[in-house]
């Protein structure tokens, strides 16, 4: 074998603490090395040209570059050796920048270590074999899970880019949390007025297939060829006939159903259309509360429906769709405010969540935009906002910042003063986090123009000032807390207390992650592939993240990430065929004993058992599904599975190169 070595200076990044010339000189003595040199910037155009030229001139069969991390430039150099006619896997990289130059100033020992790393790379290269990628067809369709603002944006972007979109939403209407908001910060523009047209676009776009009241049951396959099972829950109304006229809603006798769209501050009917702008605007029956299902009587909606659309015998439907990529946009849920006993949420009717308050502020909400206390319907004159309820609080296992509560609290305080000019608004806060375009200015406006009183400190307790059991009718709530700037206790008698609840991963997010074979953190937020360089990708190729399913995000950030995810999908599916990575598991059938442990451990379902003619079984790798993680390889009791490009022999060659002095040190 003929190997060439290039040691990169990376300007001064490496050369300052590593003697690159000496490393190159030493490399000339390594077995099979016929050429070794150093270069100021191996990745530069002249650097790459030198590599290509040397391969041609000296008829090299493999190249080692000692420079930065392979995550940085492996692809660059692989392309270079390929241009010169070599297989791209006949290339090895020794990381002497991050692993050597940047972590120590000892030039002598750095040079020794760099030499060792190059020796390892050369030894591995001697065992490398050319590998070729296989190509396969892709479905030019994308599945988007969740139709909040992120899912809607991603769907529209993908559809505009020419992809067919399957959009799945578990609620009856698309729109998500944004459809519940009154105004948005920092512009105070109407939330649903901005979102509404996009929702209509989704409903009408010829490339978007919308499944609401639906959930993903199972995802199988691999990038380009996913197969997804979607359970469409029965609405008990034939949506091809329903016109959304609302006659059934008026006549439904179960009128005491807590209204989910309005966060439970009012009631609705058992058959509902969640809100006027709902897409699709179709009625659905909630069988857990409908008298027809719970008690076996009633049937009014069926009688009054002019389109004869109500069908009590309708069943769930399970659909199968084939898609090439997946975007998860499952969003967030809010922290359960009753977990913080000190604020009395759930016990005192006038302690409400920020989203309940939002519904109250909304002109299309149950109070038509009038702020009314739940206990007696009176207009509150003092409203206290408590920030960081279920955020930055280790005692309730929510140590993270939910990022948007500071801003929406300022918005709600401003709107309070707008709606009730003689009302006082107080905000108890820990720190104000207003990092965004126009955000800090917005907080200033709340404080200066709207005279919102900001008190830096936590609230110790909220308690009713008067009245026995049953809550204070007409009474006030006393909010006792610390003002850490004054170093004093403060007590404020409030008519209404609004808890700025933080974000949690959407209910069921970890279960969905399991179905999609992606990872999530301890709180259920999905993990991106790299926090900085691959923030939209997951570790499962072909599955992307959009919006607050990854971490708490406000609307602009969600929309931006949704468009980013759509861009990734469009780029991925712009090709007719995809190439599979050849660095995957390979079964040596002769060694395999058919015990099936690999099949059981594979997190990607990439191994199946194949029956030989004599009836015995052997493992087989589904090449397009395998992600090359290597778990099967270490599980296999007989080492019958090897990971291509990382075989035992290749790794042993590296270890042996590194440990060649073992005998001398231990047996003396």
């Amino acid at each position: 074998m003929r190997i060439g070595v290039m040691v990169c200076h990376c300007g001064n990044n490496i050369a300052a603490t590593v003697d690159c010339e000496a490393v190159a000189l030493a490399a000339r003595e390594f077995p099979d090395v016929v050429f070794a040199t150093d270069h100021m910037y191996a990745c530069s155009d002249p650097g790459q040209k030198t590599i290509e030229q040397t391969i041609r001139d000296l008829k090299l069969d493999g190249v080692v570059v000692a420079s930065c991390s392979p995550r940085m430039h492996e692809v660059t150099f692989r392309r270079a050796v390929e241009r010169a006619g070599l297989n791209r896997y006949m290339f090895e990289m020794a990381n002497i920048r991050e692993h050597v130059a940047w972590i120590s100033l000892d030039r002598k020992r750095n040079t020794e270590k760099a030499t060792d790393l190059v020796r390892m790379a050369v030894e591995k290269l001697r065992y490398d074999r050319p590998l070729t990628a296989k190509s396969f067809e892709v479905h030019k369709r994308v599945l988007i899970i969740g139709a909040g603002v992120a899912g809607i944006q991603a769907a529209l972007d993908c559809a505009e880019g020419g992809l067919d979109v399957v959009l799945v939403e578990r609620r009856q209407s698309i729109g998500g949390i944004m459809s519940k908001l009154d105004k948005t910060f920092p512009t105070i523009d109407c939330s649903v007025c901005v979102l509404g047209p996009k929702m209509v676009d989704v409903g009408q776009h010829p490339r978007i297939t919308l499944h609401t009241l639906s959930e993903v049951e199972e995802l199988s396959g691999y990038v380009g060829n996913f197969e997804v099972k979607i359970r469409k829950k029965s609405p008990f109304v034939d949506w091809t006939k329903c016109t959304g006229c609302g006659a059934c809603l008026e006549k439904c006798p179960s009128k005491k159903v807590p209204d989910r769209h309005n966060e439970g501050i009012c009631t609705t009917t058992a058959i509902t259309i969640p809100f006027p702008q709902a897409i699709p605007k179709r009625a659905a029956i909630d069988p857990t509360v409908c008298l027809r299902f719970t008690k076996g009587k009633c049937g009014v909606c069926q009688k009054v429906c002019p389109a004869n659309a109500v069908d009590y015998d309708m069943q769930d439907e399970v659909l199968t769709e084939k898609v090439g990529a997946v975007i998860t946009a499952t969003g967030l849920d809010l922290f359960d405010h009753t977990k913080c006993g000190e604020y009395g949420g759930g016990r005192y009717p006038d302690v409400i969540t920020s989203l309940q308050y939002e519904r109250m502020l909304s002109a299309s909400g149950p109070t038509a935009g009038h702020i009314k206390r739940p206990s007696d319907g009176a207009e509150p004159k003092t409203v206290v906002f408590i920030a960081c309820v279920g955020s930055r609080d280790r005692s309730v296992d929510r140590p993270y910042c939910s990022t948007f509560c500071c801003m929406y609290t300022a918005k709600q305080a401003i709107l309070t003063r707008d709606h009730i000019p003689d009302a006082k608004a107080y905000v108890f806060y820990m720190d104000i986090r207003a990092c965004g375009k126009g955000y800090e200015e917005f907080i200033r406006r709340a404080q200066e123009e709207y005279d919102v009183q900001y008190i830096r400190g936590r609230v110790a307790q909220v308690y009713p000032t008067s009245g026995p059991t049953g809550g204070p009718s007409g009474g006030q709530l006393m909010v006792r807390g610390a003002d850490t700037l004054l170093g004093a206790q403060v007590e404020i008698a409030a008519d209404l207390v609004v808890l700025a609840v933080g974000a949690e991963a959407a209910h069921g997010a970890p279960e969905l992650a399991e179905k999609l074979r992606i990872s999530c953190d301890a709180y259920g937020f999905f993990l991106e592939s790299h926090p900085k360089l691959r923030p939209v990708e997951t570790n499962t190729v072909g599955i992307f993240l959009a919006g607050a399913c990854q971490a708490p995000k406000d609307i602009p950030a969600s929309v931006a990430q949704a468009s980013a995810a759509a861009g990734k999908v469009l780029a991925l599916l712009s090709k007719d065929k995809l190439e599979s990575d050849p660095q995957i598991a390979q079964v040596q059938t002769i060694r395999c004993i058919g015990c099936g442990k690999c099949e059981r451990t594979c997190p990607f379902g990439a191994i199946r058992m194949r029956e030989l003619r004599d009836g015995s079984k052997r493992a087989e790798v589904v090449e397009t599904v395998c992600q090359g993680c290597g778990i099967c390889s270490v599980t296999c009791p007989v080492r019958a599975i090897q990971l291509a490009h990382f075989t035992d022999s290749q790794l042993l060659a590296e270890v042996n190169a590194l440990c060649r002095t073992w005998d001398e040190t231990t047996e003396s």
Partner: protein
Amino acid sequence: MASDSSANASPDRTPELRAKIAAELEGVDFVLGYGRGFDPLHATPVTVRSEKDLGRLIFDPTCVQNLATSLYGLRGKRLGVVVKGCDSRSVIQLLQERLWERENLVIFGLPCEGVIDLAKLRASMDVASVKAASFIGSPRNGLLRLTLPEGGREVVIEKESAGLLADKCLRCQYPNPLVSDHVIGPETLPQGAQDTYADLAALEKLSTQERFDFWKRQMGRCIRCYACRNACPLCVCKHVCLADSREPHWLSAEATLQEKWLFQVMHALHLAGRCTECGECQRSCPMGIPILLLKRMMNRELKELFNYQAGVSLEAIPPLHTFLMEEDRIKDRGLLW
């Protein structure tokens, strides 16, 4: 069923064993059992193919071998096998790992009160000269009666068998077969002490250098005969063992310390979460190297990390043969990387 008498009287169960095996002979290729070996203190595996072989069967505290060792090489047949409590754990492990099919195995289980470790007897006398041996009472509190030549005459001596019990019997928690088709004789109560891993603790008291020296000394004595591997019921690579493989080339044929040592470490790692501590590897070692320590070290880790013990349940999924996003006792994931 012939439930004669108390647990520690240890009546001869051979007749019952023979009868049970005779009844099953029809449906199997053969039955693996114990027979008398080349001297009164050695048992040896025998195959029972027909009625005439039944007479060779024995069962007493000299039956130390784990007959499950032979099973993997006999795949494809329909067999009967005689097991003690500890051996049954190897069988469970083989079944659980789908290395044998339950329907092709007839298991004759023998509740066991312990077997003797000849190495312990060898320390005080010349075992090879024993002319006859018999056990009186339970091995846990009875006697071993030996007939020895002495200047042309024969003398009879008695030794307390408790002092000769194998180490694994001293900590035995599973004296009764955990899987069987026929149980021969009454079940017995576990009489072993709780395993405190005192042997490991003693080793870990040594400094790193002392421990390194200890293993260097021990491993240096290895002659790479692979008796340990061949005696292991769960070493199933056999013909493709890494010790003999050129691709991947883990070990060279050189008889250096590091090659010997690496082999033993590999052996231990391959058995992590699988080893039932039957002790056959160490028993079969002609050099008396304490290699079971390595396996016990792995088992202790497994117990601490995954609360798992191999070969106890047919349904259990060994922790190293599964993939979980989050392990209860391993905290390596959080918000940050």
